[in-house]
């Protein structure tokens, strides 16, 4: 028996030997790798009390470090916090760092290689280490306008970009929050505030799950632009094609029927041109296109518009992505997916990029938030240039789609977005959320149609049809006017 007891002891010691090994690995051998991991907030927080560079919009700092107490010299503060929270993120002692504060940490903290000489200088002059400041592409007035266009208590996002450069001019979502609440040096207040904020649905304390870059929403009819591009590039369709437009589409072997919207004008014709189908946002023509072309063709075109693809690292914000479903869909599933329902999801930013590609002759530009990065002595360290992200479709096809989108605003259901004297191109979408009559209501479009200066994407979550109509197209009009009248 004692022999067995000894063996058991040996087994226990062997387990402990494994533990010693595992601990040594984690804390010494693999420690550097863990320290360098992008999720690891501890490295950033090492410099919690240093003077970080400012984040600047329109010449004014929206995030900056101000002198604080003796024990912790600098405190991060945010001006117009709610307006920019989704962009700046927060810099918190106990909850880590998100948003641009995290993505641009190297520059803001002054630890990037480009600031090496500055650091040497600071060393000799005995100055406090100071980081570079970053100016954003955002337009403060536009940002404010967009933010105010989402009523308080309404969940929604607005993205305004320049389709030619990929610069983001405004990007807002509600509900928002005040990052100062979490950046405070008072640990208890910080904890209380964080828990309080976390309870509010839709608050994007974690940008990759909500807001313009992270909320994966059913795109509804705005996805029909993808079907249209797929149809035209397949060679099977051209601008004069007549599409079948049954009042409802049935599928072999199941009860379910896919209807056209009963309230619209779709039921007046049994066939439809592309122009009519887009103007009235009929469902069945696009479901028929998808049936005809097959799932792979739609998925491939969606990927070309960036669905499920990388947005490049210029954006500097975490973003979510989702591809058109890859697993085999049945006939009904494909039809529903073709009109942006079922499992199709996209972030507001993704839809904005899709529209921008159509506006920019089929070329999708890399989304960009950074105008300039300047060292503490105001030297320009970096200035991102516009970059092509991918080619989504041919110039001819994009011109054709633009033309139809213009008619959506001039004669179709996007009339609310019309701006006198300017050709506005647009597409609306209504994605049903279930059976309670609430939808995600979309508008995406650009203006002027022949020389696009601005692309606007608006989504309002969980609204009924009337509210959705009031909050999308008319709001887009206000943004177009604001930009074009500058």
């Amino acid at each position: 028996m004692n022999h067995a007891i000894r063996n058991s002891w040996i087994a226990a010691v062997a387990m402990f030997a494994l533990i010693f090994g595992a601990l040594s690995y984690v804390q010494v051998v693999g420690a550097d790798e863990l320290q360098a991991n992008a999720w690891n907030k501890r490295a950033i927080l090492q410099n919690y009390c240093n003077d970080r560079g400012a984040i600047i919009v329109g010449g004014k700092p929206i995030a900056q470090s101000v002198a604080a107490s003796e024990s912790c010299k600098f405190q991060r503060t945010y001006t117009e916090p709610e307006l920019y929270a989704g962009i700046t993120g927060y810099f918190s002692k106990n909850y880590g760092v998100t948003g641009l504060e995290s993505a641009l940490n190297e520059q803001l903290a002054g630890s990037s290689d480009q600031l090496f000489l500055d650091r040497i200088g600071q060393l000799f002059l005995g100055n406090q280490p100071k980081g570079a400041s970053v100016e954003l592409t955002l337009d403060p007035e536009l940002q404010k306008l967009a933010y105010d266009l989402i009523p308080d208590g309404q969940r929604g996002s607005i993205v305004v970009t320049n389709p030619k450069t990929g610069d983001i001019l405004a990007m807002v979502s509600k509900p928002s929050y005040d990052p100062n609440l979490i950046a405070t040096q008072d640990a208890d207040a910080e904890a209380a505030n964080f828990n309080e904020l976390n309870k509010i649905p839709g608050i994007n304390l974690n940008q990759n799950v909500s807001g313009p870059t992270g909320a994966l929403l059913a795109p509804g009819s705005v996805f029909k632009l993808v079907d249209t591009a797929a149809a035209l590039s397949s060679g099977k369709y051209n601008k004069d094609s007549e599409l079948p437009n049954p009042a409802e589409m049935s599928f072999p072997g199941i009860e379910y029927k896919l209807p056209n919207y009963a309230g619209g004008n779709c039921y007046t014709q049994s066939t439809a041109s592309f122009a009519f189908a887009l103007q009235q946002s009929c469902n069945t023509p696009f479901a028929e296109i998808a049936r005809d072309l097959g799932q792979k063709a739609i998925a491939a075109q969606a990927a070309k518009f960036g669905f499920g693809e990388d947005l490049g690292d210029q954006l500097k914000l975490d973003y979510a992505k989702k591809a058109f479903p890859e697993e085999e869909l049945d006939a009904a599933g494909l039809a529903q997916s073709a009109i942006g329902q079922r499992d199709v999801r996209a972030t507001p930013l993704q839809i904005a990029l899709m529209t921008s590609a159509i506006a920019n002759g089929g070329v999708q530009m890399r989304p960009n938030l950074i105008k300039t990065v300047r060292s503490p002595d105001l030297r320009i360290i970096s200035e991102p240039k516009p970059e092509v992200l991918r080619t989504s479709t041919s110039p001819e096809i994009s011109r054709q789609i633009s033309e139809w989108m213009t008619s959506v605003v001039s004669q179709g259901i996007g009339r609310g977005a019309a701006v006198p004297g300017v050709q506005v191109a647009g597409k609306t979408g209504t994605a049903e959320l279930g059976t309670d009559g609430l939808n995600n209501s979309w508008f995406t479009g650009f203006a002027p149609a022949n020389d696009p200066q601005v692309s606007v994407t608006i989504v309002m979550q969980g609204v009924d049809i009337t509210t959705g109509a009031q909050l999308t197209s008319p709001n887009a009009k206000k943004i177009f006017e604001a930009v074009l009248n500058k």
Partner: protein
Amino acid sequence: MTQIEATPKPRRNTELALLILALAVGIGANALVGVDQEKAFDQDFWFQSSLLAAAALVFHIVLRIRAKYADPVILPLVVALNGLGLAMIHRLDRVGEDTGNNQLRWTLVAMGVAIAVIWFLKDHRILRRFTYISLAVSALLLILPLVPGISAGEILGASVWIKIGPMTFQPGEVAKITLAIFFAGYLSSNRDLILLAGRKIGPLQFPRFKDMGPMITAWLVSIGVLIFQRDLGSSVLFFGLFIVMIYVATSRISWVIIGVGLLLGGGFIASRVFSHVGLRIDGWLNAFTDEVYGRQYGGSLQIVEGLFGMANGGLVGTGLGQGRPNLVPFANSDMIIASFGEELGLIGLFAIVMMYLLLFTRGFRAALGTRDAFGKLLACGLSFAIALQCFVVIGGVTRLIPLTGLTTPFLAAGGSSLLANWIIVGLLLMISHTARGPVDTTPMPHGAEPGEPGEQKPVPPSPARPAKQPARQPSSAHPDAPTEAVKQL
């Protein structure tokens, strides 16, 4: 150092000296955590320190009276661990949180119960009478969390809690003790039966199917715990406990092979069938993938944050109160090892793990020294349970194995775990008291393991006894009679 003790020495003064050292460690740590956080020498600190010291001294005095030959190292080790745990929990308390004092209250309760066990039980062999009662109690304890009315429902994905008034309690923690008592009782009575019958297959001697009954039962119990309470850690613990005890009872390696085989098989099937097991394994294997990291259930955020913390601590640690252990979820309970890793570094954690190693080693020594089969089995089982629990917890935190919900003995915040582990300490102290105390026969020289730390009496290496010759055991119905023939090693 090498001498055969003619007369047993109580060594209570050694214990007192070590105890003062242990209190210095715990209280010193508690003082240090406050230095940077304006918690230094606050009311909580004095309250916690003085009460811990008082309780430890009372325990020591009780040992002087009731179990004066008890192992002098066990109590100081546990007091040091418990003190460190208190310090860390106090350090992690944010304003308005009172986990530290709550932990202290439970420590006092647990020590009180352990003292009561020592005081009233007098001799561990009495427990043998309760073999089948223990089984019934174990079953009851394990079923309790599923009983509507007292069940606290599912907390964090496992339903292992019961609610008594405002308190929650994990009966499974106590069940490991009652199960160990049942196993020890059953096996010490039925060893012959299990040993004598059997078939040889190749080099292995397999027991009869009839005798596999308790084995299968134990396996089913642990699988049952896994299914109904979603408690992966406990099922591994119960099963490991049973394997080691049946191995010690029979000295047959075949049991271990069957047992580990069943465990792996069960685990594999469970990972396929039960989503929560599959998620845990996925969270372990793919901890660093986006999807797994952010997942709400079975996500790896906890593990990864813990690893970051430990990596931040590095070799020497940030120092108590200087790190950011609060970035890790459950920093004061499930992940307390990561908190220590961050603030005390690899060196500190090695010291802590070393204390556990010494603790269970002392338990095994008590098992070697005591002369009744029941006591041997019980001490061995309880000691191994402590070791296995540490392995499962620390292995999980370091991503050596999937993370399962077990508590770190004596360190983690949680009353049930403290209570159960202090009772184990009480039992081990009692067994070591009979092991080291005087006997009417000639004292058996204790074998000491090479490399075993502490004061000891190594004997010349003994020829390994063939494992197939278990000690003969006259079936004595009288539980108090020493039943095992003393074997000279």
